[in-house]
């Protein structure tokens, strides 16, 4: 009994501590106004795309008499080439794209952090090898390679697309991580861990990696923008057969069905572009806040 309540109290306080830390981080982020606005923008777009579809049904009724309507109360973003509501498509079209974007960024961040920190820590041949690999992948034109792969393999699953993108976008993060680890590994606490003979995995993942959380967070947002660039580009070209409608497919349809010659389709083509651009800009702006949150400690350390 006592043990159970003790444990629950501990958990309560852990949650409380987490919330307190979260709140103080938010407060720090709010110090930079552009950065905080970016953060709110990203959160709003992600929430709308993942929670919105539960409340807003996808409009699939074709209304021939209501093609390319300008925004009104019933259709806040107007209608498309078949008279369907654009806003409902925007709300439903974010999830597949964002899922792949964030998944690919996670994969590339994992690869980058693993190779970067292991390389910097072990040094020697392994480090040279990893750096070579990074330099090589960096000089491959990624979009054409992805397009060629999409043309040869049939990329039906989101995980496959995300995996391929993640496998190509890690080098910049890896270089950054490597440089960071190289400076971190000379610090006292790492020296003492080494003196205690705690083993390389312990030092890399317990002593060094946690101290790079901020650095990784900033680079993760950059990885998301890079992956979004690739996913949207591929879906825009129609090379990734995603079953659902999404922002990339919307731009493609708007483009091929009228944006090049019809002035009326402006809301149809601008809506998905705005959604993607705002999400990208939000991430980039958010980095200003993130670096302000994490910078003091990094500066103090070096």
């Amino acid at each position, binding site marked *: 009994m006592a043990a159970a309540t003790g444990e629950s109290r501990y958990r309560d306080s852990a949650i409380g501590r987490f919330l307190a830390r979260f709140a103080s981080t938010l407060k720090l982020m709010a110090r930079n106004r552009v950065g905080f606005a970016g953060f709110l923008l990203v959160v709003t777009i992600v929430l709308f795309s993942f929670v919105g579809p539960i409340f807003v049904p996808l409009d699939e009724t074709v209304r021939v008499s209501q093609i390319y309507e300008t925004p009104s109360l019933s259709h806040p973003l107007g209608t498309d080439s078949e008279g369907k509501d654009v806003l409902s498509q925007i709300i439903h079209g974010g999830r597949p794209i964002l899922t792949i974007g964030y998944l690919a960024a996670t994969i590339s961040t994992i690869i980058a952090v693993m190779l970067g920190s292991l390389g910097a820590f072990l040094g020697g041949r392994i480090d040279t090898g990893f750096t070579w690999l990074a330099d090589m992948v960096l*000089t491959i*034109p*990624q979009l054409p390679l992805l*397009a060629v792969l999409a043309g040869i393999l049939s990329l039906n699953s989101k995980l496959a697309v995300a995996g391929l993108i993640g496998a190509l976008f890690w080098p910049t993060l890896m270089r950054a991580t490597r440089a960071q680890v190289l400076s971190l590994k000379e610090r006292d606490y790492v020296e003492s861990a080494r003196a205690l003979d705690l083993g390389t995995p312990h030092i890399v993942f317990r002593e060094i990696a946690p101290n790079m959380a901020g650095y990784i967070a900033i680079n993760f947002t950059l990885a998301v923008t890079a992956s979004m660039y690739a996913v949207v580009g591929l879906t825009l*070209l129609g090379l990734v057969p995603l079953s659902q409608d999404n922002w990339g497919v919307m731009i493609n349809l708007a483009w091929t069905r009228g944006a090049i010659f019809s002035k009326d389709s402006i809301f149809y083509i*601008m809506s998905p572009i705005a959604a*993607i651009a705002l999400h990208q800009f939000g991430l*980039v702006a958010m980095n200003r806040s993130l670096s302000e949150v994490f910078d003091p400690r990094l500066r103090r350390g070096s």
Partner: protein
Amino acid sequence: MARTSVPATGSGALEVLRKVASSYLFRRLIKALVTIFVMASLTFFLIRLMPGGPVEAYIANLVSQYNVSQQAATQQAASLFSLDLDAPVYQQYLEYLGNLVRGDLGESLVTRGVPVSEIVLSYLPWTLFSVGTALIISFSVGILLGMIMAYKRESKLDHILTNLGSMVSSIPDYLMGILIVVWIGVQWELVDITAMRGSLSPGIQPGFNLTFIGDALYHASLPILAYVLGTIGVWMLTMRGSTESTLGEDYVTVAKARGLKERRIATAYVGRNAALPPFTQLSISIALVFGGSLLIEWLFVYEGLGYVLYNSIQQRDYPVMQGVFLMITTMVILANLLADLLYSRLDPRIRVGGRD
């Protein structure tokens, strides 16, 4: 002292070889060749060995659709892909590499009898022209703006340009391209988008004259604008940062104390050194812009390598797809090599440990 003695013995020759092997240029060349080799092998194995992959699918299609015998179909596929399909895979692979070195990439599946190398070479100049021009414009203008921002830091101009730069750099270049077409072309009708398609107007003959150069620039202008807008933000922001830190360097203070003219300090002391960090980012940008040509050329119907690559993927024209992809990769790697060599000229520290 020792350097002046001519290496006459065997060990001396070895010493020269070792020096060549450890030189910067040599290492860069090897890296470039390895990357091209890996990409060539990857596409070979994907196209040739994938179960149900292109070659197998092509043969199966010939047999079922045109009633061709298995042997005849294999022969036809072999000549199109310029492979000997009966030989063991490693032998095919070696032959493929041999053909590649000679520039033989097989024949197009769609336009029969046309060698892939011919297609690739006829579209290459347009991509090189538009992408190269865009990179040069974007880099030089971005550097200039970045320096101005750093010199006028915390001014209104700086704030506007910084926000503009980060906004522009966060929007993908192909979305910029769409915005250009939709707003400049369709909504405001400032330019005739349909007339600007293609890489040249009908009837214009390539030659070294003003009409040709003007027309080529006219058709390339919108793609170039899209590339520039897609990359300039990064140059502006990195140059702003590096100029700011260079301005705090001792040698700049000393130059000021020596009473050098402000302009001379800005170009020879600040600019030259501050431009080094952005320069190292060129390699990323080169790959990005060349890769982006796939989408940009599709959007503007600009007939370069990206345009051909898109069409060959749509038409499942594998030899062309492979050839164009390898050419784009080679161009990116060569451009990187050039950028690296230029960089080692600009920053002598890079050559340390290499040649003397």
